[in-house]
């Protein structure tokens, strides 16, 4: 934390020993952890723990989930440190603690690095070092591969970078079993192929922001029409992929039925995006209403798909 945050003198002590006063509130530090993103990460990680064969002491399981959450938060904090220049020019992110001047960049970086190291060590001590290694890999992937390398260089940033968000169920699985098997990779693949349609739906109605910031998101580089086409192609891959847990015997028919129905709704939502009324250049004439709806539904889809996977395991022991 910053100088003033660790000031031991209480309220009567000098207000600050540094030239920069710490104007942050606790909620700013929480905001650095991107708590809204964290919920999906924690949930999929927990499902990885639930569906893995074997048993983990409840305290250790909760610790593993906590480590996944803290690692995701740490990645988010480091991402906000690195992206503070583009966050400042994007409407959606301009009020974040660093661009708003409430947290100093170096303090955010130190906070992120500390939490990243702490989460990996704690994961290793509480569960096993394979899970800790995968956790470290997920942080490194998000920070170095996605944030520092891909995000500003290629419109495929989301495709490859999406792997970072696909790690949590693998980590949960490894925490229980001590290894990474094909079932864990299937869960990884589902989130990996879910990420492009999810983020490109968002980028369709936030492309102005990305353009201002110079981030080469697909709608900025290739246009909205091509983005809608790619969203549809990835959706066609994702829908059958959702059935894979049943096909390989990792889940039962109850999950398979749920995945079939959810996949159908997902395809319908993305088909509406593809068929959105648009002008000659592909710009939406409906203010991207189908993309907004598809973005929201994509979150529900992933939550429900993984909930079905966990329920299948808990109720039917598949």
């Amino acid at each position: 934390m910053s100088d003033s945050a660790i000031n031991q003198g209480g309220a009567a002590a000098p207000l600050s020993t540094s030239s920069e006063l710490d104007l942050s509130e606790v909620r700013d530090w929480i905001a650095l952890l991107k708590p809204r993103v964290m919920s999906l990460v924690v949930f999929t990680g927990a499902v990885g723990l639930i569906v893995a064969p074997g048993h983990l002491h409840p305290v250790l399981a909760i610790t593993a989930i906590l480590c996944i959450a803290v690692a995701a938060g740490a990645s988010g904090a480091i991402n906000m440190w690195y992206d503070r220049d583009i966050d400042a020019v994007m409407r959606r992110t301009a009020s974040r603690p660093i661009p708003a001047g409430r947290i100093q960049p170096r303090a955010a970086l130190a906070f992120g690095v500390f939490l990243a190291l702490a989460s990996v060590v704690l994961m290793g001590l509480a569960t096993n070092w394979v899970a800790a290694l995968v956790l470290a890999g997920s942080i490194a992937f998000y920070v170095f591969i996605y944030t520092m390398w891909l995000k500003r260089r290629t419109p495929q940033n989301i495709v490859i970078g999406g792997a970072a968000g696909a790690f949590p169920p693998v980590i949960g699985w490894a925490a229980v079993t001590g290894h990474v098997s094909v079932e864990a990779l299937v869960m990884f693949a589902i989130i990996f192929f879910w990420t492009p349609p999810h983020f490109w739906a968002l980028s369709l109605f936030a492309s102005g922001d990305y353009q201002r910031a110079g981030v080469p998101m697909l709608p900025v580089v290739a246009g909205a029409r091509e983005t809608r086409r790619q969203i549809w192609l990835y959706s066609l891959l994702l829908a059958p992929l959702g059935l894979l847990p049943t096909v390989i015997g990792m889940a039962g028919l109850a999950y398979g039925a749920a995945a079939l129905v959810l996949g159908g709704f997902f395809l319908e939502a993305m088909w509406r995006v593809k068929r959105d009324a648009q002008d000659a250049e592909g710009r939406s004439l409906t203010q991207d209403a189908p993309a907004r709806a598809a973005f929201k539904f994509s979150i529900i889809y992933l939550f429900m798909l993984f909930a079905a996977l966990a329920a299948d395991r808990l109720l039917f022991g598949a």
Partner: protein
Amino acid sequence: MSGRGTPQGMTEAEKQAFLRRRRGRNWAVLIALLALVGLFYFIAMARMSVH
């Protein structure tokens, strides 16, 4: 930015807000440290029970 600079340059209201924010952060650090102590205790107990 409003409020930036030395504490002496702050108005009384800004100073109070600054002190309130710092108190909040210090409490959060204390709670986090206590939670960590508790967590390590329970992890140790759980690991010993497993073995």
